[in-house]
């Protein structure tokens, strides 16, 4: 009765298939269609307008720069956190809870939290003033201080989204039997060697999914940037939002969307290839 293929499993998955087809596959095709149709025929006009826009080159540069800086830092930070947490016995649950709080915090709220810290009359400036490093309220988040603004966004992104990498890595670490590291230790491997030769290779599947998830989200980055710097720091998703909502030009917004999707897919493909694990290598 249960092993026999029947109509029941199809009836169970059908609603979600219909739903995903209607609200995932259809809009996917629509986006592509919208981006290549202008006026009454197919054309690359939307892409030309997108590429010709003043902010375009800057948005591409900023998004890539942000991703390339934030994602590796998050992985390193999360690996460090995970290593520290796994060494704990007492208070482990409490520490983990605190470290994973940002997981539930929206990018907008994260941007606002860091705004409280970094705004002109914020806590950072107050501290710097107390130390005698600045004379009075100083702006860090304006167009005139692009480097400071960039670092502010990096900090907020690190704060907000390292938790998800941490959770995925700890879930992965829990799957690695302790005996491997212990065996390596008995054969004389030092902690660092154990980490690089045993833990990291076995953690590869988790690293892969963490990287895919984070990179796709990083190319979508938007609200943190807006909360901290408004349009002073153009990013791809932000431009798509502006073209859609402010300029009411759905074609160019779709072109941006296709660009983001293409980059995300390319990044996913790279990760799948570079970090692939052969099934026989799994414990």
């Amino acid at each position, binding site marked *: *009765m*249960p*092993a*026999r293929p029947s109509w029941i499993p199809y009836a169970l998955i059908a609603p979600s298939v219909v739903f995903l087809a209607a609200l995932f596959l259809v809009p996917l095709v629509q986006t592509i269609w919208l981006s290549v149709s202008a006026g009454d025929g197919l054309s690359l006009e939307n892409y030309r307008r997108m590429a010709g826009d003043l902010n375009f080159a800057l948005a591409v540069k900023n998004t890539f720069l942000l991703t390339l800086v934030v994602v590796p830092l998050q992985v390193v930070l999360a690996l460090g956190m995970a290593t520290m947490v796994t060494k704990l016995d007492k208070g482990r649950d409490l520490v983990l809870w605190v470290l994973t709080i940002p997981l539930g915090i929206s990018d907008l709220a994260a941007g606002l939290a860091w705004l409280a810290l970094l705004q002109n009359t914020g806590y950072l400036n107050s501290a710097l003033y107390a130390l005698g490093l600045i004379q009075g309220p100083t702006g860090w988040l304006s167009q005139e201080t692009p480097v400071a603004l960039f670092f502010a966004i990096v900090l907020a992104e690190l704060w907000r989204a390292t938790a998800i990498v941490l959770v995925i890595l700890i879930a992965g670490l829990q799957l690695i039997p302790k005996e491997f590291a212990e065996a390596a230790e008995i054969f004389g491997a030092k902690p660092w060697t154990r980490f690089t030769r045993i833990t990291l290779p076995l953690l590869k599947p988790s690293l892969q999914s963490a990287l895919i998830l984070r990179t796709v989200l990083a190319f979508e980055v938007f609200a943190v940037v807006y909360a901290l710097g408004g349009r002073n720091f153009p990013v791809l998703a932000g431009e798509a939002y502006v073209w859609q909502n402010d300029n009411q030009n759905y074609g160019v917004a779709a072109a941006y969307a296709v660009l983001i999707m293409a980059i995300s897919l390319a990044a996913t493909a790279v990760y799948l290839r570079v970090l692939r694990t052969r099934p026989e290598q799994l414990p």
Partner: protein
Amino acid sequence: MADIVIDRVVKEFGSFRALQEVSLTVNDGEFVALLGPSGCGKTTLLRIIAGLETQTSGRVVIGGQDVSHLSPRKRGLAMVFQNYAVFPHMTVFENVAFGLRMQKAAAADVKRKVERAAALLHIESYLDRYPAKLSGGQRQRVAVARALAVEPAVLLMDEPLSNLDALLRLEMRTELKAVLREAGTTTIYVTHDQTEAMGLADRIAVMYGGKIDQIGSPLEIYATPATRFVGGFIGSPPMNFIKVRCSQGTARIGDAALPCPVTAESLELGLRGEDASLSADGSGLPFDVRVVEPMGSHLLLTGAIDGQLARIVAPPTAEVTAGERVGLTVDPARVTWIDSTTGRALARA
């Protein structure tokens, strides 16, 4: 109470044939064990009887009613699962009462029957506990009580003791036998443990490769195995098989001679380790002893007869040393002759 007729049941999983035309009749009130190694199809057969799997062809008849295509709940049976399947979110009482509640029995009836089943299995004192607080043996009792509470026409048990430790298994086995004898329920019991099957069952069906090799009482199966497989699977140590040449009704091994049937081309002598005894003067079947293992109740001798591996059981006081050649006396009436090509036992002379 009901009898069970399994009529040419076939089960295929894709191209794999798990059961090949199995037929078996279980009489009313009888206890039959399905015994075999893992993968022999015994659990599949039990699940088909329960209605948890559907046979590819063939029929299952319980108490005269063809239940081949009925869902499990309509077959009037109860089952004890290998991992007990005692519901963790219900108290012991509710677990035992589960089947009765599904039958919409009156509250007083439920209480009475649950208490009776609980008394039978000695679990009255923890009826209001949750299973998480029970040991494996206690959960086992709950699972059996749940099955008996519905007073089923047929009771199916799938390796019910295999998750218990050795000592507890022995205790539960004895108790199970007493309880089931009293209940008198038609029972099919799946196990890979020959001592369980021998100890509990009225009849044993030995299964191998999706077929039933032999059905019979424990003694029959032990003394007169129908196939090479049954002989080798039942008994400890397993039956020895010695290839012999049979000419004119006599098989010669060393200076011993045994009468043999002449119907087959190549023959094997099936000899149980405890059916041979050491001869006083070294005459008889020559046995080269390689290893001597004192087991307390007996000596286990491992060596070779005519260059072929054999294990022989000797009295604990026998004086045998490794490397020695001894002679074995064999009662021709207690050996089994096997046709090497078919693997089947030949009719006794």
